[in-house]
């Protein structure tokens, strides 16, 4: 093993160990407790599994075509749409779930406003709908990063040989981004496994609901034990993604597909519909609340706090993800280390937060500090960054780096001038994802933040919990706006990189 590889492995092992530390605490907390779930356990496991499978499938079916659309086509206003399409990641899914709960069904807001009867949105299908709307951007962003690294020539060749466009996309493009696609799908699955709010509001009995009930009844040990059970499902999902192989190829010119006026109009209509469902619906329901109860007071400093702590966590996660992702491309040990960092995303935030409280109390200086809060975010969201950086790294042709080295570039220069530009889209997507997730994260934030550190998410929770959902409208709108702008900014830099490459 070369000196550099040993260094990368060592660094990754350290990061993986830090991320797994709270999981270790969880094992200690859960040791010795017992939960008798009985016959209910089977139903809970089945519900959890079905919800995860359905949501992952639906999010992939929505996210993958959108990635294609926003990467390869001449859709008017592409950066804007991409930003907006990613923005649902900033909406806490429990708010979306509540909006659908309040709007649909007999006597809901839709019926009250329009007189149209709508079916209730609840149960397995309701939870799937809501979770899909707030997780498909995982697939969208990671697939985009993968697509951007493909060379147009293979697709062009297939087309020249007479293959219809759709067949070519399915048979020539899709297999080459399958690992990016799988990385996105993995995040959807893990998010679904660890989300509490949506199944609870949709009245679906899942693992997280059982965990939350125990936690609230001061059964920390039982909550920890149930979380360990949930980790079993997380392990299965991680193994499934493991078997999706990766492909390597020389990056090149991004393909361009022309939609035509009719095609563009149809695509814009579909995008508009999706955005209405994911963003328009909650904002509409909360706006009704504003009209009824007034917007309430709102402190703009919360916005600054949310954005700055999210940016801090995003930067830290990307920085720490680099060695882990690199190690993952270097062999089996590296991949195992990388898998280790994914565990945090499958543990419900409330349990992870509790474990980190115990960690923080051991180091008094850390307890209730921004540092511990940011560490909590990294533990939970590191895989969002790792997955998006690993995929492009895997495809980076080692020959290019070797060529740069043989032309006299130092390893640092080769990284900066060859590897970095190639993985930059991945880095940006990674940062954007972590940023958005931190913006909406609630349970761990409540437990770990410094006293008095109010963010948009904690404020939203507070007014929602008390039943004042009119007061949720302004902060929810700001959350969406800031996230949309942040993503659009990152994508603008992505375009700059595009020009540099071609």
């Amino acid at each position, binding site marked *: 093993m070369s000196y550099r590889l040993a260094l990368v492995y060592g660094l990754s092992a350290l990061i993986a160990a830090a991320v797994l530390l709270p999981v270790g605490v969880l094992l200690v907390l859960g040791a010795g407790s017992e939960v*008798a*779930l*009985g016959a*209910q356990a089977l139903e809970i496991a089945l519900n959890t599994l079905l919800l995860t499978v359905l949501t992952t499938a639906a999010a992939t079916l929505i996210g993958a075509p959108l990635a294609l659309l926003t990467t390869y086509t001449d859709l008017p206003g592409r950066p804007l749409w991409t930003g907006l399409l990613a923005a649902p990641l900033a909406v806490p899914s429990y708010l979306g779930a509540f909006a659908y*709960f*309040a709007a649909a*069904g*007999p*006597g*809901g807001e839709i019926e009250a406003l329009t007189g149209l009867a709508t079916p209730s949105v609840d149960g397995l299908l309701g939870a799937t709908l809501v979770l899909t709307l707030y997780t498909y951007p995982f697939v969208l962003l990671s697939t985009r990063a993968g697509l951007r690294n493909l060379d147009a020539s293979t697709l062009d060749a297939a087309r020249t040989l007479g293959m219809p466009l759709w067949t070519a996309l399915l048979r020539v493009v899709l297999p080459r981004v399958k690992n990016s696609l799988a990385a996105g799908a993995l995040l959807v699955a893990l998010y679904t496994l660890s989300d509490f*709010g949506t199944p*609870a*509001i949709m*009245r679906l009995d899942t693992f997280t*609901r059982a965990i*939350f*009930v*125990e*936690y*609230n*009844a*001061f*059964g*920390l040990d039982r909550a920890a034990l149930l979380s360990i059970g949930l980790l079993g499902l997380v392990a299965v999902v991680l193994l499934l993604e493991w078997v999706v192989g990766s492909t390597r190829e020389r990056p090149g010119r991004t393909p361009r597909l022309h939609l035509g006026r009719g095609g563009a109009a149809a695509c814009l209509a579909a995008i508009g519909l999706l955005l209405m469902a994911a963003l328009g619906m909650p904002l509409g329901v909360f706006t009704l*609340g504003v009209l*009824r*109860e007034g917007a*309430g*007071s709102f402190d703009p400093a919360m916005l600054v706090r949310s954005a700055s702590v999210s940016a801090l966590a995003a930067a830290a996660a990307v920085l720490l993800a680099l060695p882990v992702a690199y190690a993952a491309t270097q062999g089996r040990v590296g991949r195992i280390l990388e898998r280790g960092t994914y565990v945090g995303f499958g543990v419900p935030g*409330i349990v992870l937060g*509790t474990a980190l*409280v*115990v960690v923080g*109390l*051991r180091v*008094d200086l850390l*307890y*209730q500090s921004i540092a511990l809060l940011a560490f909590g975010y990294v533990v939970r969201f590191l895989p969002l960054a790792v997955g998006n950086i690993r995929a492009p790294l895997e495809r980076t042709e080692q020959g290019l780096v070797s060529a740069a080295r043989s032309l006299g570039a130092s390893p640092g220069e080769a990284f900066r001038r060859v590897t970095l530009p190639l993985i930059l889209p991945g880095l940006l997507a990674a940062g954007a994802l972590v940023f958005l997730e931190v913006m909406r994260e609630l*349970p761990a934030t*409540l*437990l770990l933040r410094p*006293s*008095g550190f*109010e963010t948009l998410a*904690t*404020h939203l929770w*507070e*007014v929602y*919990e*008390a*039943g*004042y959902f*009119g*007061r949720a409208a302004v902060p929810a709108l700001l959350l969406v706006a800031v996230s949309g702008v942040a993503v659009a900014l990152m994508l603008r830099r992505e375009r700059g990189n595009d020009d540099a490459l071609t």
Partner: protein
Amino acid sequence: MMDRRTFLKGLSALGALGVSPAWAASGAAEAVPADQLPELSGDLTVYLGRGEGGLYKQVVEAIRERNPSLSLEVRRGSSSGLANTLVAESEHGGARADAFWSIDASSLGHVASEGLTRPVPAALHEPLPEAFRFEAFAPVSGRVRSMAYNPERVREADLPERIMDLPDTDLTVGWAPSYGAFQSFLTAMRLLEGEAATRAWLRGIQGRARSYAGELGAVMAAAQGEVDLALANHYYTLRLKEGQPETSLELAFTRGDAGALVNTSGIALLSQGATPVDFARYLHSGEVQRFLAEEAYEIPLAGGVEPPAGVPALARLEPPELDLTRLGDLQPTLALMREAGVL
């Protein structure tokens, strides 16, 4: 309704509104106006469990403004989350809170059962009715269990007078089994009626019950006619009607049993010294009691403050007698709920 800004100004400018003496007969001392309370100073860390959309925080901010030499740190979170945190802090040697003001008695009871609270001094008992003088914490404001129903669909006469009779009706019920307030209610039933009766009650209703994530959801369902009645804290109905006054929704109460449980928010004293006690006295002041009643529809408990129109007055309710500290013992209740297949 009192404007929030007026309240803040009033409290900080030492203004006090007149206090009705209606409760003098019940043994409770009259509410002390905030300007007659001692000025607070020194360091104080308060853990604030929930807080009704920021209303509790406004109270805390008003107290902060009124006492410039007090260095006040406030940490907000879910009531059970903060209770768990307090226990973890004490186990790992990092206790830092001086007082725990929480929205539900069960979290206060849990902290007390771990031995973290100091006895409530007589000064904090005086303004409270006898039934609310506990050793572990001082109640601040009350909320009563209720049956919320749509009078266009259900006649009040069809609602049971005793909560234990609910299984004998054919009414469909909306409830929120995973919600803290419901579990507290059921814990009260378990303590008052016994485990077997509670189990039978759960099984009797289960077939006609729909579960909701929270009690606001259950109350909305009753308004929309999804269920005949919702078992919920009274204020969800009042808040829903504040936003949608045309909503057809009324409150009914059972008598002398867990169905009429008056649960409270309250403050537990965690550290020694006079400051936490004096802080708690502010929460019993006429201004704060009125503010919580008018803005959050909570039932005033201290100093005989009259509730505003719409909020049920304590004198007209028949709550069961129960030391609310015991509501912290939730695990046996969860076991019952699991046995009955409700959770």
